[in-house]
């Protein structure tokens, strides 16, 4: 069947991934977290935004399985809804920078010349700069919001992807199938998108997977500092904000341990998946 073409081209990717037990465990954890986020309205008995001052910072109980936060909102509900926010910020940010990275890297590697030199110097500069300082500068100007976070992480994350794609294109463009395409009059755009890009996809997928883990960490860090997703919208990072007070930290562990664990689980599982994908997609790599 036509739908199996990508699998047939790289035989055994799934088989190799499946043998990587840690990666499989990672995929399972991520599946559970995603399901929890998607099915949040079904799983959460309480409204994550409902403020109840009478139940302020109360401990875990039957009606609030993980207690309530400083505004009396249900921590368990917020944690599930926060999964939606944190996972989608990671996904959108990485989608933006993968797109930018692939386009710039493909352009750089295919055409070379001064445009290549300029793009690569730009990548060097972005890579050499402490991105967190630049991000908080931009957030200070634009104001913190969930969309600005996606945009800023997305706009600054592209250099590693661009470098990978460029390096692959530099060698791929010299191959005979490119020459063959040219002789029959195939346009550059078609060579880039139909002939070269599919060959460069595997390492991009691996880099984007690790990138998603980093983007989730970055969003969590920024939201924790008050520069990311703003309450009342819950994100795993901003749910830990209250724990900067020592009283909350010491006597209300239900407020900060669950969301912190969720970040660690999500990032760990995505890193494991990335590791498995790297082994599965690139048989030469023996880690």
């Amino acid at each position: 069947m036509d739908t199996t073409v990508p699998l047939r081209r790289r035989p055994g990717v799934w088989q190799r991934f499946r043998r990587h037990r840690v990666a499989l465990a990672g995929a399972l954890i991520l599946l559970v977290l995603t399901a929890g986020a998607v099915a949040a309205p079904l799983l959460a008995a309480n409204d994550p935004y409902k403020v109840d001052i009478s139940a302020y910072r109360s401990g875990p109980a039957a009606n609030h399985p993980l207690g309530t936060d400083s505004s009396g909102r249900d921590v368990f509900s917020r944690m599930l809804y926060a999964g939606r926010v944190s996972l989608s910020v990671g996904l959108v940010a990485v989608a933006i920078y993968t797109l930018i990275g692939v386009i710039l890297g493909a352009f750089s590697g295919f055409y070379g010349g001064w445009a290549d030199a300029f793009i690569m110097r730009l990548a060097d500069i972005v890579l050499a700069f402490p991105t967190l300082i630049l991000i908080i500068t931009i957030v200070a100007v634009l104001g913190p919001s969930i969309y600005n976070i996606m945009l800023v992480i997305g706009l600054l994350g592209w250099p590693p992807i661009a470098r990978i794609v460029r390096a692959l294109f530099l060698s791929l463009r010299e191959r005979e199938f490119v020459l063959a395409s040219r002789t029959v009059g195939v346009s550059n755009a078609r060579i880039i998108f139909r002939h070269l890009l599919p060959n460069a996809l595997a390492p991009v997928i691996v880099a984007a997977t690790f990138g998603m883990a980093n983007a989730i960490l970055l969003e969590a860090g920024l939201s924790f500092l008050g520069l990311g997703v703003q309450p009342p919208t819950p994100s795993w990072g901003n749910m830990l904000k209250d724990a900067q007070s020592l009283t909350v930290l010491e006597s209300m562990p239900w407020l900060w341990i669950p969301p912190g664990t969720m970040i660690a689980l999500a990032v760990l599982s995505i890193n494991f998946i990335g590791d498995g994908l790297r082994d599965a997609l690139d048989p030469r790599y023996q880690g």
Partner: protein
Amino acid sequence: MGTYLLRRLAISVPVLLGITLAVYVIISLAPGDPVDALVNPEAVAALGADFREQQREALGLNQPIIVRYAIWLREVTHGNLGYSFVDRQPIAAKIGERLPPTLGLMSSALILAIVIAVPLGVLSAIKQYSLIDYSATVLGFAAISVPSFFLSLAGIYVLALKIPILPAAGMVTVGVPWSLSDALWHLALPAIVLGLAEAAPLIRYTRSSMLEVIHQDYVRAARAKGLRETTVIYQHALRNALSPLVTVIALGLPRLFGGAVIVEAVFAWPGIGTLALAAVQGRDYPVIMAINLISAVMILLSNMLADVIYAVVDPRIKYS
């Protein structure tokens, strides 16, 4: 070597100009009028729009942005980083005060990371696929996956609140004369948290670099001479495996600095990170501008330092 470094320095200048110009333009897009920050707001309100316009003219705000940037640049080269919008203090003095704590935190974390990562990486490589190899890999994954602020909070919860053996925040005990032991006692927890995160990539690089080296001919030759295994590993293999690590550490410095900003926030560490966060919250743009400049300079200088160290530890490297 000298000419190489001079050339590197020359390349760094346009990079710095590019970064600072970009940040300057971004900051100039910020909403709000600097007049409100610099001039007594009561005077502005009382004297009306004409006065505001007069002040804008006097402060040079009506100049085109490129002229304002050039003026900023001229002042920076004379050591004037401007004045804070919030407390009108010179920024150079503020940075001078905040830089040593951050550098202290970063360097102790880096030393700790190297002390953890190099032995673990070497052990992982010489005992490949053993229990210790797998444990080091898992530890590495955990260290890059647990957010540093969560690890900080957990560290404070356990080691400062439940078993109170370490302080929860700050750099010194307030009201007690400065002593080295007190400073180290405060440094321990933030340095451990930051060091663990930094150790993870170093373990992986040490391991793969070591794996590459121990299959080289000169290692086999050393064994064939009848040298003891520890001599072979630690004197012949390790020295060669470590030189690429210098580059890895240098390339990781921006990440370490980012980590320091978050750890400083949790531990109320009086460094550049907390200064940057306070400046962002107070919309103190001149301070934000200066911190961007200082971080860019620091990273460029440390990359050059890494090149020098690389040439020193590995005589095969020749710059021309």
